[in-house]
């Protein structure tokens, strides 16, 4: 029977061990195997054939992969430049003093996150329908013309995916901003008002600096999340037309599971890992997310 003090030293290790066991098995091991596979040519049967860095050189010359990277970068930029500010604005609105029904609004805006992406994508497919969809019908109703080929024309298809991203994630980010805004002491605004600051200046001088930690969290979440975008383009457009909406995650899926190029897919995975992981780490370090104390 170990002493009380000894039990107390060992207990935390025992408590965190289930996590690290799973972590080693289902995260570290796959990353290692992925690294190895990326250096091989393998269709899933027999022994992987060692090819060195061939997959990587092939990747950088692969037009599909490059357009997947460009599309993914566009999605990330859209999230950071449009979805995040939209969420912040909505949160500002929700934080208005004396607003009634705040919880109702907050809940409603959160609903998209609760639903399965397949359901959401299906409804949007109906909306985007060129002849019978609600979007074109609304355009016809308001402007007398609405013949946009939402999912069939390359640039509109990108827009359609982005609109879906906007619809699906804005409410989720809003709750973080709202919680952050509620944490800002009223006195700071009152002090700013006494100093003669208008709405814009107090937003810039009080709200933004005070929201920095939340903004950092939201920005990192959004970047890392959107960099992995898969469901929206896959379910809405299958990456098409052509490869106009293909994302990196979809590219990996396609190479691995429809074309059986497991080594090649693993290489694309490694490239994605390096980019996302370091963006995430750099952003975390810059903003100090998760490191208070």
């Amino acid at each position, binding site marked *: 029977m170990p002493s009380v003090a000894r039990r107390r030293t060992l207990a935390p290790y025992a408590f965190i061990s289930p996590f690290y066991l799973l972590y080693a098995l289902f995260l570290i091991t796959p990353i290692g195997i992925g690294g190895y*596979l990326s250096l091989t040519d393998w269709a899933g049967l027999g022994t992987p054939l060692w090819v060195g860095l061939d997959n990587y050189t092939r990747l950088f010359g692969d037009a599909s992969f490059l357009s997947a990277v460009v599309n993914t970068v566009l999605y990330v930029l859209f999230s950071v430049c449009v979805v995040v500010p939209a969420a912040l604005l909505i949160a500002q609105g929700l934080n*208005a003093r004396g607003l009634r029904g705040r919880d109702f609004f907050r809940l*409603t805006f959160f609903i998209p996150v609760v639903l399965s992406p397949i359901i959401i994508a299906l409804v949007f497919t109906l909306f985007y329908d060129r002849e019978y969809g609600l979007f074109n019908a609304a355009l016809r109703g308001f402007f007398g013309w609405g013949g946009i080929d939402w999912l069939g024309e390359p640039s509109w298809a990108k827009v359609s995916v982005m609109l879906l991203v906007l619809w699906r994630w804005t409410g989720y980010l809003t709750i973080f901003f709202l919680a952050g805004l509620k944490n800002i002491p009223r006195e700071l605004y009152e002090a700013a008002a006494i100093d003669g600051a208008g709405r814009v200046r107090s937003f810039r001088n009080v709200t933004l600096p005070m929201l920095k930690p939340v903004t950092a969290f939201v920005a990192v979440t959004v970047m890392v999340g959107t960099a992995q975008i898969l469901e929206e383009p896959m379910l809405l457009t299958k990456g098409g037309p052509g490869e106009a909406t293909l994302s990196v995650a979809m590219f990996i*899926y396609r190479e691995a599971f429809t074309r059986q190029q497991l080594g090649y897919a693993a290489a694309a995975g490694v490239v994605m890992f390096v980019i*996302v992981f370091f963006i995430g780490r750099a952003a975390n370090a810059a903003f100090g997310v998760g490191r208070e104390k």
Partner: protein
Amino acid sequence: MSALQTKRAPAEPGARRSAAPRSKSPADRRPRLVYVLLIALVVMFVLPLLWALSSSFKHRGDIFTYPPQPLPSPFTLENYTRLLETQPFWGWFATSTIVAVVSTAVSVFVCALAGFAFAKYRFRGKRLLFDVMFSSMAVPFAVIVVPLFVMLIKAGVTNVYFSLIVPWVAPAFGIFMMRQYAEQAVPDSVLEAARIDGASEFGLFTRVVLPLLRPALGALAVWSFLNSYNSFFWPLIVVSDPAQYTLPLGIQSLYAAEAHQVDLVLAGSVLAAIPSLIMFILLRKQLLDGLTAGAVKS
């Protein structure tokens, strides 16, 4: 302009005493404008759901019409009866529910245990271990998908439940959330008192800590239930036998079929959304507050 004038009339004198006079008119106009915008957003967020609900009661031919008809006429339950008669809907539902419930139970336990250890013990390597755990959140899912799939195949794992549940029961986000909550919700004095009474460390966790963590446990439970119940990508990869499909896979298979069985898909989507919405509505406050607690802790 006239609406603005009436609003500015003495309706709410001194509502913003501290504001400079010049900013008065936008300040008074603001609440109404805010409501208009927020209600417009509610419409945007709810419309797709209502549309799906309404369309699920339409005849197949009425789903695509021009101009679009908001309400089903005639109203029919045929899509639902046909879905339940021709598709193993309840089988999909059972698989999804079992997977979601088991993963939720296990992951809440694992995360609470680890989160408690990080919050309330001092131990060597804690900082490093925490950083290692935390940075795993930045590992893209798409990266481990291929090798993990290969591993499971090579290890001869054919049990769908194992593949769907086990790799995902210890999300770093959950541990982070639990640590944030445990730090402020579990007073050291309570732990010391229980130790003096002779509680073992694990007994301390189950009898003292878990009850104190209850709100956060609820939040994590909904979060992990929804994640699992709605997940699409991983099941798409590991489940190949239609008899073992989860709900999202089943619905997707209907839609991917040659004829795009939109009528059945809509009925299935509505039914599949019910448990998520119920879960969410029951535990909404805990979920929203719990999710944000970690991010905005001052």
